[in-house]
């Protein structure tokens, strides 16, 4: 009842466990041969042992398997002599017809346990070590049986009867029909069978009683037991007359066996199903939780909800169910239900149940751990995109954790706040974050959001290190790396004369943090929970029994082979916990992003590839999608759209269910680029709008998406030659980026502004923007962007007049190594064209002498642009080419280039419109 936390390990004896005990009895026979009687080889004997071990540990479901399932598995395991095993099992089960039989059975079973008091042991006698896993199991079963009241024994007996009968009735056809989908016919059929059985069993019972009576006459001091039993059985028979008994009892069992699918209630309590042990269920739930987090919304909401509801009904005190419901709802974007279940879970469990990171040894006070509830609530708000609420809740969590001096929770909360601050654009934290979090605010110094984030990050890291929370340390390192990547560090407090400081980001720091994160893999050992890995292992083993391979392996009697083969089945018993793998994986992902920003395309691609190939098993599908996105983007930039779209199709199939996901985003991005290049401006605008709609309307949330959308909007406007509108949008975008401290994006926006001015013919106005962008690129080490800015700068100089051509060409040449090494098709083509234009406009350059110097880059450019279907630039390239050919007097080539020019111009001016295949992709 309320306030009393039940000990978790309570253990109830069920028919299935009785079966396992019978099998254990077979496994540990009394004979003293090296290979005991029913087994043909040592390997087979070992295999049964493994099977039993797996049965007690596996956590693949909440219910214990039914007898026919057990028989099925037994058939796989025992190979050739399976018939004997199954016969033995069923006959032993059917022999349990009186309560006394159960008592005797458990007394017998006790015999196979070796004990310290047993003393003299013969050398080759088989006994079960009481402290082994199987021995423990057996002892628990015996203990649970001994604790049963007489009513409990009666229930066990009836249940065993049902368990046995059910299997028998479905035995002839158990392979063909699943027990679940019983139609009315089969139900009737079952009923018929049950009726017969009923007769059969009762006849048998009375027979036996007769026999015992007879026996008891000879052994008078045992008289009391059979009499009582006899009276009991008689009582049953008196209670209902034979006619109604048949019609009633038959029904009594069957309809409840098979939950009617059509009824509004999805679940009828069933006397034939039993929950597994608490430990196994917890393992199952843990597995499911992992699965939900891994596959996100592709996890089936309702199917799992059904299982949970059933579990809740059968075990109302198992509060973890509510948490799983919360997770399920969270990943299916059901805010209200998630909120409700989260509160319910923490109300019931007080945060003390099943949370992994609560060290069990820590002093558990009476107060409960409600700060963890706050932490989870904050994370939930964050997930749903309510940054303000999340921050408020997390602040409260910090306060309560401090009050309760729960350092672990505090460390996690701080990390969550860091995460929140770095993900969500918060222009000012003043008034939201209390003074309790950072020491600096108490002195009365107001910090900008990013400074505050920096302080928090450092504090959080230190705290995690001192508490030895390895995973948290690693994720903090990751967060730090992210911060270092995006922000220039300034001293927080500067007194006196300004120390000389380097206003640059520090790639070495980023690298260091990333490396530190990866160290985790060698240190996780102490934290992993054995429960799930062990259980998962057993589950995998059991599942693989069903494969035909299993029996094949067994039928060969190679003693050593079958044991190793058994382990081979398991999908690589990876001993690294999933959460660790996930962290390491995300470090690779971050590396990819880092290289992308720093401008090394091959390194970015390699890291994304490593991620996508090595970590896909362990990772959440959204992260995996991100890796795919990076690879596809790479393809689009370097290989053109055709290949990118082909790859996209594969990715879409792989991540089918992720709505509003990165894949969709990627599709829109690719479409936008493509349409822009081909000159379908209307379509481009449409795609752009659609992109903007994906972002949340809450200010500060989805900043990445919002900047992306407006950047693309600007580019569309630019392509449509609406310069003033484009400039206005770009300005507002710049303001937004400035407000939310998005410096890296600012560099891009500035470059775009320069581009706008260049296109509108105001080269002089464009120059400062280009220079500003350059300096941004320098301080953030954005090498590729810097090269691109240099190129723009060169173009600007060039458009100022031919006397600047020399300067321009030196700029272009300066940027060439970077561009040719890492730049995409478009950038390279632009560089080539710019180079050619510089030469052409240079008065001191004569075409006739060095025609290849100009023609070669132009040819390169035209090839690359044709791959991209970038009509505008391609037309330019061909135009220049035809001019050069004209000057050289090569008329044939000139005509060819002119024809190509015409083709591209036509395509640009008459976009195909509605029948364009691109339309269908939207």
């Amino acid at each position, binding site marked *: 009842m309320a306030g009393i936390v039940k000990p978790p390990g*309570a253990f109830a004896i069920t028919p299935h466990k009785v079966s396992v005990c019978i099998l254990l009895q077979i496994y540990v026979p009394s004979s003293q041969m090296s290979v005991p009687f029913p087994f043909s080889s040592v390997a087979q004997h070992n295999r049964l042992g493994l099977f039993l071990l797996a049965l007690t540990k596996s956590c693949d479901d909440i219910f214990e398997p039914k007898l026919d399932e057990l028989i099925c598995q037994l058939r796989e395991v025992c190979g050739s002599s399976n018939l004997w095993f199954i016969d033995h099992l069923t006959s032993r089960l059917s022999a349990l017809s009186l309560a006394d039989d159960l008592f005797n059975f458990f007394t017998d079973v006790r015999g196979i346990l070796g004990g310290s008091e047993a003393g003299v042991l013969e050398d080759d006698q088989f006994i079960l070590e009481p402290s082994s896993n199987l021995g423990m199991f057996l002892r628990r079963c015996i203990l649970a049986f001994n604790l049963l009241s007489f009513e409990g024994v009666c229930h066990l007996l009836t249940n065993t009867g049902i368990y046995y009968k059910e299997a028998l009735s479905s035995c002839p056809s158990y392979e063909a029909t699943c027990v679940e989908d019983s139609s009315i016919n089969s139900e009737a059929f079952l009923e018929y069978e049950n009726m017969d059985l009923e007769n059969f069993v009762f006849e048998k019972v009375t027979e036996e009683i007769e026999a015992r009576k007879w026996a008891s006459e000879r052994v008078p001091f045992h008289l009391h037991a059979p009499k009582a039993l006899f009276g009991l059985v008689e009582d049953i028979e008196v209670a209902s007359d034979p006619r109604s008994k048949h019609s009633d009892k038959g029904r009594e069992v069957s309809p409840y066996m098979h939950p009617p699918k059509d009824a509004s209630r999805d679940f009828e309590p069933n006397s034939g199903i039993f929950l597994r042990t608490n430990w196994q269920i917890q393992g199952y739930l843990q597995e499911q939780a992992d699965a939900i987090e891994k596959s996100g919304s592709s996890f089936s909401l309702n199917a799992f909800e059904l299982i949970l509801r059933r579990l809740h009904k059968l075990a109302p005190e198992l509060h973890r169910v509510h948490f799983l419901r919360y997770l399920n709802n969270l990943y299916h974007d059901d805010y209200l239900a998630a909120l409700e279940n989260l509160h319910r879970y923490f109300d019931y469990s007080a945060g003390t149940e099943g949370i992994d990171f609560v060290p069990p040894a820590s002093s558990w006070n009476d107060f409960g751990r409600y700060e963890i509830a706050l932490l989870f609530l904050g994370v939930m708000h964050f997930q749903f995109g309510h940054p303000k609420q999340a921050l408020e809740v997390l602040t409260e969590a910090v306060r309560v954790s401090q009050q309760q001096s729960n350092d672990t929770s505090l460390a996690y909360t701080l990390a969550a706040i860091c995460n929140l601050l770095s993900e969500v654009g918060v222009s000012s934290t003043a008034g939201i974050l209390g003074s309790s979090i950072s020491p600096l605010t108490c002195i009365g110094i107001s910090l900008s959001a990013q400074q505050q984030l920096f302080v928090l990050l450092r504090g959080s890291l230190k705290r995690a290190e001192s508490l030895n929370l390895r995973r948290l340390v690693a994720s903090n390192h990751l967060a730090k790396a992210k911060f270092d990547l995006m922000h220039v560090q300034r001293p927080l407090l500067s007194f006196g004369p300004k120390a000389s400081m380097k206003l640059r980001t520090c790639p070495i720091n980023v690298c260091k943090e990333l490396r530190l994160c990866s160290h985790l893999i060698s240190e996780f050992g102490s934290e992993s929970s054995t429960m799930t890995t062990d259980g998962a292992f057993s589950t995998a083993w059991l599942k693989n029994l069903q494969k035909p391979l299993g029996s094949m392996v067994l039928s060969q009697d190679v003693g050593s082979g079958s044991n190793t083969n058994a382990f081979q089945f398991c999908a690589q018993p990876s001993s690294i916990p999933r959460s660790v793998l996930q962290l390491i994986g995300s470090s690779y992902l971050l590396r990819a992003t880092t290289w992308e920003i720093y401008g090394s395309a091959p390194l970015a691609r390699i890291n994304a590839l490593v991620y996508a190939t090595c970590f896909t098993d362990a990772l959440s599908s959204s992260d995996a999608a991100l890796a795919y996105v990076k690879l596809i983007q790479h393809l689009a930039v370097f290989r053109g759209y055709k290949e990118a779209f082909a790859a996209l199709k594969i990715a879409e199939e792989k991540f089918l269910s992720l709505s509003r996901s990165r894949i969709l985003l990627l599709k829109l991005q690719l479409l936008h680029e493509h349409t822009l290049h081909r000159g379908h401006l209307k379509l481009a605008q449409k795609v752009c709008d659609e992109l903007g709609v994906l972002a949340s309307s809450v200010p500060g949330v989805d900043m990445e998406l919002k900047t992306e959308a407006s950047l693309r909007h600007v580019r569309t406007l630019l392509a449509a030659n609406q310069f003033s509108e484009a400039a206005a949008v770009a300005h507002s975008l710049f303001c937004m980026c400035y407000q939310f401290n998005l410096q890296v994006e600012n560099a891009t926006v500035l470059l775009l502004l320069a581009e706008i001015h260049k296109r509108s013919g105001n080269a002089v106005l464009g120059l400062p923007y280009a220079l500003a962008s350059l300096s941004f690129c320098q301080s953030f080490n954005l090498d590729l962007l810097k090269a691109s800015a240099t190129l723009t700068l060169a173009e600007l100089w060039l458009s100022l007049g031919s006397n600047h051509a020399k300067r321009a060409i030196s700029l272009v040449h300066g940027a060439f190594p970077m561009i040719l090494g890492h730049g995409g098709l478009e950038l390279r083509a632009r560089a080539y064209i710019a180079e050619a234009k510089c030469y052409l406009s240079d008065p001191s350059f004569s075409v006739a002498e060095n025609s290849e110097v100009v023609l070669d880059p132009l040819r390169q450019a035209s090839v690359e642009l044709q791959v991209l279907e970038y009509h505008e630039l391609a037309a330019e390239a061909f135009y220049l080419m035809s001019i050069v050919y004209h000057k050289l007097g090569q008329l044939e080539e000139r005509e060819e280039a002119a024809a190509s020019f015409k083709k591209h111009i036509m395509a640009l001016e008459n976009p195909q419109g509605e029948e364009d295949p691109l339309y269908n992709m939207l």
Partner: protein
Amino acid sequence: MSSKESCKSELRTAIHQLSDRGLYSASKWAAEQLVGIEQDPAKFTPSNTRFQRGSSSIRRRFRTNEITSTPIAGVSYVSTPVMEEDEVVVGDFYLLAKSYFDCREYRRASHVLRDQTGKKSVFLRCYALYLAGEKRKEEEMIELEGPLGKSDAVNRELVSLERELSTLRKNGTIDPFGLYLYGLVLKEKGSETLARTVLVESVNSYPWNWNAWSELQSLCTTVDTLNSLNLNNHWMKDFFLASAYQELRMHNESLAKYECLQGTFGFSNYIQAQIAKARYSLREFEQVEAIFEELLRNDPFRVEDMDMYSNVLYSKECFSALSFLAHRVFQTDKYRPESCCIIGNYYSLKGQHEKSVVYFRRALKLNKNYLSAWTLMGHEFVEMKNIPAAVDAYRRAVDINPCDYRAWYGLGQTYEMMGMPYYALHYFRKSVFLQPSDYRVWIAMAQCYETDQLLMLEEADKCYRRAVKCDDREAIALHRLAKLQCELGRRDEAAYYYKKDLERMEAEEREGPNMVEALLYLAKYYKAEKRFEESEAYCTRLLDYTGPEKETAKSLLRGMRTSQSSFPSMDVEHFAP
């Protein structure tokens, strides 16, 4: 009145029929109503007069309007019970079975009737079987309780009963009682729609079975389902509607119905208790107390609904009355959840929370779904500072009935106590959604918003305003609101609310620090507004109190006098030359 007479004769027959079939609680209910009908003055017996005198005072006190209409009796209903015909001579087997049934040997009873075909026998057999299954289920529930609170015991007779009854219904050979049982079985099985239809059939053909009505009522969880029922217009329908309205928290409608019914059943204890229930929900404690006093005088060994009376006594802190009540119910029947609850309340009032928890636990052992015991136990745990247990108890109450706003409120309070105001707000919001007219919840919410951690004063302001609107009886809200306005720098509004608070305190003749505070603020405010006369009035009132405020008032007065005297003197100086 003829309708009264017809009611009486209907009820008399019904009582016989119901108890013949072992439907004891329904027959008890019917008998209570029968006695509840106002007697003809001619037939007064001395005991009757005493009885009638007793309840008249309440009726005088609380019946505001004279009965406007007698209940629409039997408009479309012709009362011809046809059940008696099929067994003119009661069979011997039936008699044996009935006596077994009365001795609670249900299986035996149903066995005896195995070959009987009369409708009455069939019903008794089925009903006995059903009860046997229920009994076994209850036993199994305890036997089977697993480590994680598994409670999947089922009534094993349901399936066979459902088959038999549905065939009977198809054949058309089912009587209204059989329909009732069928409805019961269906409800237990979870097919609620069919259960509703069957129960409606049952009550339409035999309306005096209160059991059927109450089953039907438990199936009407929304107003829409209630309105969609196709019920004959019988006076029993009014009873049904009244009770259904109450469950749906339409207390005023329910009250109106009951008051109307009182026209015929003027002395029905049942109706009185139900009226008390409705008034309790409307928080009219005075009247509830009077009604219960009356009820106890007429029916001193009543245990039903007495837990509510104990709640009223608890909130009015009537130690002796509560102890008397506890003693009496204890002697009447100590193993009733209500009795345990009353005793728990008594200990709670005495401040002995551990003992109180013991009794609430016992109440819950007797009835696991006893809502108010869970909530009250939560309160006790809060007093004992056992936070997790309190949260657990409240949460169980809420999970049994998500409309229990008290438990939501309790949850909120608990979390607020732990210094988690933001988390607590979630629960207060839930509570206030269910009961928007309760000022305490609004005040609690406002306090959460006001805490140093949140400091969301605008929200707090809104909540206080709502509380003031909800007619806050303890007048906390006004004072707080005034204070808050003061903090927000809205001086005029602060003065307005202080003044209102003051008026209220004057009207209720309350004194205290709040009074002093209001006076002081108003004095200062008017002084600053240069309305010296008013300010002086407040200051002089302050002089009646001891403490530092008195000195402040004195200095204020002094200041005003000097400034007042200086003004004219200045003027004089100004104009003197």
